[in-house]
C-alpha cells in the first residue's frame, strides 16, 4: 500500500498525562483521513508531532516510506507537510500576502517582494477555488476566509500532506460546504489530507477512512462508507450516544430580558444591529438563528456591556441596563459564554482555578479584604472540573493554555453555569466539543431552563438551535426577520428566513 505518512506506535507524555499512548495512523496518498476522538484524546498532540512542534517520546514517523525525525516545523515544511491549527495563527493587521509569506519571504534586493508573491497567491487561489483576495487585511475578512488563508499558506509552501485541525468548528454551514469542495479539489490534485473534526456528518460526507482514538490509544481505523455515524460515536466514547435531546415543553414565566428598538454599531462603525426587539422569559430558551455576521455579535455584546448601544433600551429584570458597567451586569445575574474562547473567555496564562474565578474573585469566599483565599478557590474549581469533566494533566493547577481546545471550552461553560445566572447568554457553546460533551452541555442548558432561568442561545448550527430552543428568532443583516416556535418550524423555513424572507412571505 502506498502510504505518504505512517505514524507508528507513537507515545507522548506531558506532565501528569499521557497524551498519546501507542497510536498508529497511516495516511494513504490521495485520501481524506479523518481523526476522531473525545476532547483531550490526543488528536492535536499527535498532529503536532507530525508537524514538528513536539518530538514523540517513542514511536516512528515515516514520510513517503522513509523514517524521519521531524524536529521542528521547518523540517515539516520541507517534507511537504502543512498544518492549519485549531486556533489560527495569523497576524491580524497584516495583509493576506504578508501573512502567507511570513517566515518565507523572497527578496528583491533589500525589499520584500510582495508583488510576485501575491500573483502566485492569486493563481493558487484560483486553481483550488479558494477565492482569497491577497491584499485584504486579516482583521477585515471573515473567519471562513481566514481559514482559507491558512490553507493557502500551506499550498504556497508546496505542502503535499495537509493537516486540518478542527477546521469546521468556526465555520458557518455554507462555509463548511465550500470547504468540503476545496478539500475534494485538493485531493484531485494529488494532495492527502488529515482532517480532525467532531462532526460525524462531515466525516461521512468527505472522508475515506477514519481513525478513532480514545484517551491516547488507537481504537481502530475504519472505512467511512461502511460505518455508521452511531458506530463511530460509540467507538470514540465507548458507549452509545443519543443525538436527540429529550426535553419537556417549556413553562415560560415573566420576561427577564426585553430588548426594545435596540440599535448597535459594529466594529466598522456602521449599524450592525438595527431597531431590534426581543423578549426572553424565565424558563425558556430562545435561539438566535442566522448566518454569521448578521448582528449576533452586536446583540450579545450590547447585552453584556462589551459594546455601547446607540439607541433603544435593554430591560433586564425590569431595569434599563444600557448604561450599567459590565461588572454590575454580571453581579446581577447575566452570564455569558463568549464566542471566542481564547480572546474573551480565558486568560490562557492563568491556571484553570484562576480562570474559574475570573468574574467572582472579589467575592467571598474567594477573597476577603482584598486577599485571595486559595483553598476556597481550589475547592470551587475542583467542583467545576469534576461536574463538567474538564480533562487536563494537572487538574486545577494546569496552565489553561495546555488544555485541549474542547476542554478549554468546557471549563468556560462550567464557570458560567456554576454561577447559576438568571440570564445565560450562550454563544456557540458547543463549538469544538465531542458528541458526548455536546450531549451533556445540552442537558445542562435545558436544566437551567427548567430551573426557571432564561437562556439566550446563539448558534450557527441549525440542528443545535432547533433541538434546544423553545422559540427561535431569526436575524438577517442586523434586523429581526421573525420569531417562530421551534416545534412548528422546519429547516427549510428557517433557511428562507435567514436569507431575509419575512415570516409572512414564507407562509404564503
Amino acid at each position, binding site marked *: 500500500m502506498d502510504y505518504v505518512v505512517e505514524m507508528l506506535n507513537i507515545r507522548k507524555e506531558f506532565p501528569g498525562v499521557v497524551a498519546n499512548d501507542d497510536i498508529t495512523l497511516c495516511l494513504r496518498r490521495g485520501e481524506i483521513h479523518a481523526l476522531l476522538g473525545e476532547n483531550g484524546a490526543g488528536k492535536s498532540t499527535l498532529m503536532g508531532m507530525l508537524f514538528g512542534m513536539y518530538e514523540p517520546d517513542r514511536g516512528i514517523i515515516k514520510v513517503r516510506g522513509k523514517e524521519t525525525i521531524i524536529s521542528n516545523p521547518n523540517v515539516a515544511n520541507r517534507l511537504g507537510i502543512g498544518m492549519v491549527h485549531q486556533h489560527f495563527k495569523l497576524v491580524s493587521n497584516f495583509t493576506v500576502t504578508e501573512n502567507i509569506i511570513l517566515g518565507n519571504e523572497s527578496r528583491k534586493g533589500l525589499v520584500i517582494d510582495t508583488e510576485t508573491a501575491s500573483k502566485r497567491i492569486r493563481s493558487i487561489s484560483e486553481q483550488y477555488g479558494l477565492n482569497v483576495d491577497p491584499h485584504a487585511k486579516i482583521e477585515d475578512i471573515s473567519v471562513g476566509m481566514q481559514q482559507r488563508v491558512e490553507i493557502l499558506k500551506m499550498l504556497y509552501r508546496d505542502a503535499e500532506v495537509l493537516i486540518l485541525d478542527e477546521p469546521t468548528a468556526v465555520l458557518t454551514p455554507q462555509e463548511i460546504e465550500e470547504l468540503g469542495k476545496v478539500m475534494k479539489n485538493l485531493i484531485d490534485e494529488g494532495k492527502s489530507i488529515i482532517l480532525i473534526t467532531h462532526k460525524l456528518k462531515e466525516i461521512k460526507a468527505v472522508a475515506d477512512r477514519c481513525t478513532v482514538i480514545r484517551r491516547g490509544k488507537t481504537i481502530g481505523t475504519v472505512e467511512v462508507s461502511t460505518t455508521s455515524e452511531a458506530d463511530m460515536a460509540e467507538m470514540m466514547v465507548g458507549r452509545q450516544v443519543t443525538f436527540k435531546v429529550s426535553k419537556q415543553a417549556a413553562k415560560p414565566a415573566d420576561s427577564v430580558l426585553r430588548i426594545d428598538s435596540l440599535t448597535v454599531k459594529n466594529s466598522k462603525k456602521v449599524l450592525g444591529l438595527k431597531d431590534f426587539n426581543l423578549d426572553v422569559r424565565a424558563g425558556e430558551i430562545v435561539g438566535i438563528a442566522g448566518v454569521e455576521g448578521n448582528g449576533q455579535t452586536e446583540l450579545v455584546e450590547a447585552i*453584556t*456591556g*462589551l459594546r455601547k448601544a446607540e439607541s433603544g433600551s435593554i430591560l433586564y429584570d425590569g431595569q434599563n441596563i444600557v448604561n450599567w*458597567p*459590565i*461588572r*454590575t*451586569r*454580571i*453581579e446581577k445575574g447575566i452570564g*455569558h459564554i*463568549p464566542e471566542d474562547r481564547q*480572546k*474573551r*473567555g*480565558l*486568560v*490562557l*496564562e*492563568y491556571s484553570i482555578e*484562576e480562570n474559574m474565578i*475570573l*468574574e467572582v*474573585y*472579589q467575592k467571598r469566599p474567594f*477573597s476577603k479584604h*482584598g*486577599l*485571595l483565599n486559595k483553598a476556597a478557590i481550589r475547592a470551587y474549581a475542583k467542583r467545576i472540573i469534576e461536574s463538567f469533566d474538564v480533562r487536563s494533566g494537572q487538574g486545577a493547577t494546569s496552565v489553561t493554555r495546555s488544555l485541549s481546545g474542547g476542554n478549554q471550552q468546557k471549563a468556560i461553560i462550567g464557570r458560567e453555569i456554576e454561577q447559576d445566572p438568571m440570564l445565560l447568554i450562550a454563544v456557540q457553546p458547543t463549538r469544538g466539543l465531542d458528541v458526548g460533551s455536546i450531549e451533556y452541555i445540552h442537558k445542562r442548558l435545558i436544566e437551567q431552563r427548567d430551573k426557571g432561568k432564561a437562556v439566550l442561545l446563539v448558534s450557527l448550527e441549525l440542528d443545535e438551535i432547533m433541538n434546544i430552543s423553545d422559540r427561535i428568532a431569526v436575524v438577517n443583516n442586523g434586523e429581526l426577520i421573525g420569531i417562530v416556535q421551534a416545534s412548528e418550524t422546519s429547516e427549510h423555513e428557517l433557511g428562507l428566513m435567514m436569507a431575509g424572507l419575512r415570516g409572512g412571505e414564507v407562509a404564503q
Partner: protein
Amino acid sequence: MRNTIVSLLAVLFGLLAGALLMAVTGHNPFEGYRYLFEGGMRDISRFGDTLATATPLIFTGLSVAFAFRTGLFNIGAAGQMLFGGFCATAVGLTLDLSKPLMLVCTVLAGFLGGALWAFIPGLLKAKFNVHEVVSTIMMNWIAYWTIYYMVPAYFKGEYLETESRQLPDFASLKSPFLSEAFGGSYINLGIFLAVLAVIVIAFIINKTTLGYELKAVGFNRHAAEYAGIGVNRGIIVSMLIAGGLAGLGGVAEFTGNASNIQIGKLPTQGFDGIAVALLANNAPLGVLFAAVFFGLLYSGRGFMNAMTDVPPEIADSIIAIIIYFAATSILIERLVRKLLRIRADKREQSAEKGRES
C-alpha cells in the same frame, strides 16, 4: 524552577564570556574575577557597599518587573527615580522635622513623585492608547530638564551650581549605627526599605485581588474586560505603583547613597532596572538576587581595576552579555531541554542494557 536555571545559566555564560574577553585582551581571568568578587565581598564593609549599590537597582528592577507583569513596559524608571529623588531632596531641604518623621516624609514624597511621573503615561495609555514606551521615555527627559532648572533655582549648593545643597543628617537615610556595623560602609536604611518593597510587591502580585486583576489585564485585556475588570483603571494603578517604586529608588540613591542631587544626569539605575527585571524573569525575589549580583559587579570593578590592569569596562561587558543571554532565554531553555532529553535517553538505554544482561 526552570526559570531559575535559565537565569543562572545566563549568569554563568556571561561570566564565561567575560573570562574569554579578559583572556583575549591578555589578562588573567582568574585573577580578574578574584579581585572583582573580592572587591564586592572581601570584608563586611565592601559587602555593605555592594548592598548599598544594589538598593536603587532593587527598586527600579521591581518597578520594571511589576509593570511588566501587568503588561506594561516601563522604560521610564530613570525619570521616575530622578523626580522621586528630587521630591525627597526638596522635602528634606525644606522641612524641619525630627528624623523619624522626616524620613517618613521624604520616603512618601519620593514615592508620590515617582508615582506622579508614571501616572501621566498611564493616563495617556488608558485614555488615548498612547504607547507607554514612548511616553515614559519623554517623561525621562522632562524630569531631566525639570531638575536641571529647579535645583539651581531653588536648592543651589554653596559652591557648585550643578548640584543641590547637602541634606542635613536628619533628612538622610544614612545611619551611623548601620555604617559602623558594616565597618564604615556607606550602606544605609534604604536596603531595609528595598527588602520590604520586595516582600510587599510579591505579596500584592501573588496573594491579593489587586494583583490578580492587574495580571489578568496584563495577560489578556479582552478577557479582563469581559470579566468586568476595569482595564483602564488597572493600567493607571499599575503605573502608579511602578512609578512609586522607582521613586523610592530615587530616595535610596539621592538621600541614602548620596547626600545631594546633581543636575544633567539621568540615573543609570533606571535603565539597569530593565536588565535586573529581565534576569529576574520579573519575579520579585529574583529581582532582589539579580540586583545584588549586579551591585556586586558594579562595586567590585573598582577594586579589580586598582589591583590588576583589567579595565573596569569588563564588568559592564559582563553585565551586557548576561542581559543578552537572559533576553534570549528561549535558546538556553532549548539547550536545557536537549540536555535533559539526552540524559533521559541514556538512562533508558542503560536500563534496557541492564534488563538484557
